[in-house]
């Protein structure tokens, strides 16, 4: 008997029931919600404010540039300090043309100094960014470079995690990786002393924009 049959048979013997597939499939179809916290609810302005507040509480830096400002301008200080190529999403690459910094869309490497991603959405309840991998969207960019920038449009700030999943479901083919990011990397494994930049970025910079929904382009 294979391990698969062994394990399934053990479970069925213990549960002493044979056919419960109906209840399972119904639940998988209906996807009932649990309690959605009050902090995940509110109008767009409230959610935007809460998103910024929670993200900063998690040590992310938030920049809110004037409408229409291209990323190289918003990130001029970072671009000046970073040698080599800037790893970015295909959807953002056009913004870098003609400006400072060489933006490329590729898998990140250990020596990369700066990456700029487009977030699928932001979640107000905990100041969390939702990123998804895909063609032209290297997820490694969010983890290898010491400085990671994520652009998100104010129209893409949702209240809670459930609303974020609605966005992922609406975005089409399921991405291999969906990553929630709340602040820069950290560890307290040595003497419970919290330090930023454990393996992932030491700095997370959120560029909260208006009318520039890069992820959907």
């Amino acid at each position: 008997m294979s391990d698969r049959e062994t394990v399934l048979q053990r479970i069925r013997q213990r549960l002493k029931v044979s056919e419960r597939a109906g209840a399972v499939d119904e639940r998988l179809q209906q996807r009932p919600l649990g309690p959605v916290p009050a902090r995940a609810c509110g109008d767009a302005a409230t959610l935007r404010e809460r998103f910024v507040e929670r993200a900063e509480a998690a040590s992310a830096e938030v920049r809110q540039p004037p409408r229409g400002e291209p990323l190289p301008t918003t990130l001029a200080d970072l671009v000046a300090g970073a040698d080599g190529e800037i790893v970015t999403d295909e959807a953002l690459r056009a913004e870098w043309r003609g400006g400072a910094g060489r933006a490329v869309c590729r898998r990140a490497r250990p020596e990369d100094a700066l990456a700029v991603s487009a977030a699928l959405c932001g979640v107000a309840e905990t100041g969390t960014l939702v990123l998804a991998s895909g063609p032209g969207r290297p997820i490694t960019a969010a983890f290898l470079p010491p400085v990671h920038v994520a652009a998100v449009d104010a129209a893409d700030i949702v209240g809670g995690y459930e609303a974020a999943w609605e966005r992922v479901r609406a975005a089409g083919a399921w991405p291999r990786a969906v990553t929630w990011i709340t602040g820069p990397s950290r560890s307290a494994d040595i003497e419970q002393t919290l330090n930023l930049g454990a393996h992932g970025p030491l700095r997370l910079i959120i560029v909260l924009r208006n009318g520039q929904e890069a992820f959907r382009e």
Partner: protein
Amino acid sequence: MEVTSAQFRASARRALGDERLQTALASIQKGFPGKRATALEALPEFAATSDHVTAVRDHVNAHLDVYLERFEAQVQAAGGQVHWAADADAAGRTIVDICRRAGARSVGKGKSMASEEVGLNEALAAAGLQVTETDLGEYILQLRGDHPSHIIAPAIHLRRDDVDTAFAGHHDAGVRSSSSEPAELQAEARRVLRERFASADVGITGANMLIAESGSSCIVTNEGNADLSQHLPRVHIVIAGIDKVVPTFEDASALLRLLARSATGQEITVYTTFSTGPARPDDSDGPAEYHVVLLDNGRSELLGGSLEAMLRCIRCGACMNHCPVYGAVGGHAYGWVYPGPMGAVLTPQMVGIERSADLPNASTFCGRCAEVCPVQIPLPELMRHWRERAAEQGVESAMVRYGLRTWAALARRPRLYRRCARLAAGCLRLLARGRGRLTRAPLALGWTQSRDLPAPARRGFIERWQAGER
């Protein structure tokens, strides 16, 4: 990992005398519970979410076979592979096989208690693979040949100079940090591990959840190491207990609202990643192979019995953070992978009660663990279950067995019991010679070695009650 739970008493005694360990343990009890309380206060819906998630976990356990089949079908539909492991050996063999077929030489590993449980590092090393633990705490332990003493803060028992020594013994002088400040040591590990991430052929991670609707695995970290271990190598292997399944992303979201708050007091961990299958043909990055190893190893035996609630466990560590016994002796004394109250329930299941009979007794039954458990596991009740099994099987010491039998015989005869109690109280009063306390008492050296025993009062409770003193 060798099981040393049978030596709990000796290990606990050693731990109590270990000053460095005591300092570390004091910091756990100072840190985690306060942060958790603050986080819960900021989420008024915590209790309702706990009720909801507890119900979801019970629903899944009651339909576990079907959920596992749905999960498997979805992993396959996404281009991944599912492997079933009935026990620890099967898990090790399966993962070694996947690595061999992939022609792998090096493995980068995220922190996984399931992998500790099956002794995965030993199995991989025996197959000639070079394994690097990438969680900072686990990496330090690996260099020292040490084991985790806490399920979410594995190196909690070490101090900065222990880490400094471990690094000095294994890192080239060129990458060494200039001081033993935690920030510097962390930066040193970062420098060393970046190259390992990039060069690993296989990445192995655990899973905090498996999502049935999509066949996804979910893993949370604060460091980002599990992400580097699963997005960079050519092969990603997930090892997870069969108890990790939740139905949908909505259910996963509810559970995540409990997990970090209960564990570290964070609202959410820095990284929460849901992986579904291997990279798609046009993806910019991601592994070419995605495997999930579903581990039973005694879990299915918990179904349908009095210990079933244990399968709700989300491995947050709140029970040990709040346990006075864990706080006094630390994780290593428990002698295996899972310490604290949850370990006192799981270890007897996985290694046998005859090898771990002291663990369910390593509790004052104060009930704090059950109070703080986000999925409402009645841990003291489950420990009592194991105490009863131990008694039935006669695995406790002869002294305890005969002592309890004598006491039970007396307790069933109230008159005799009271007479004996009066006699004993009288003797103790004589021994105290009017000082009101005893510095040594027969049969109670365990008590009097570290504190005085108060001498019994002249008249006991029942006597005074009967005399109308109410």
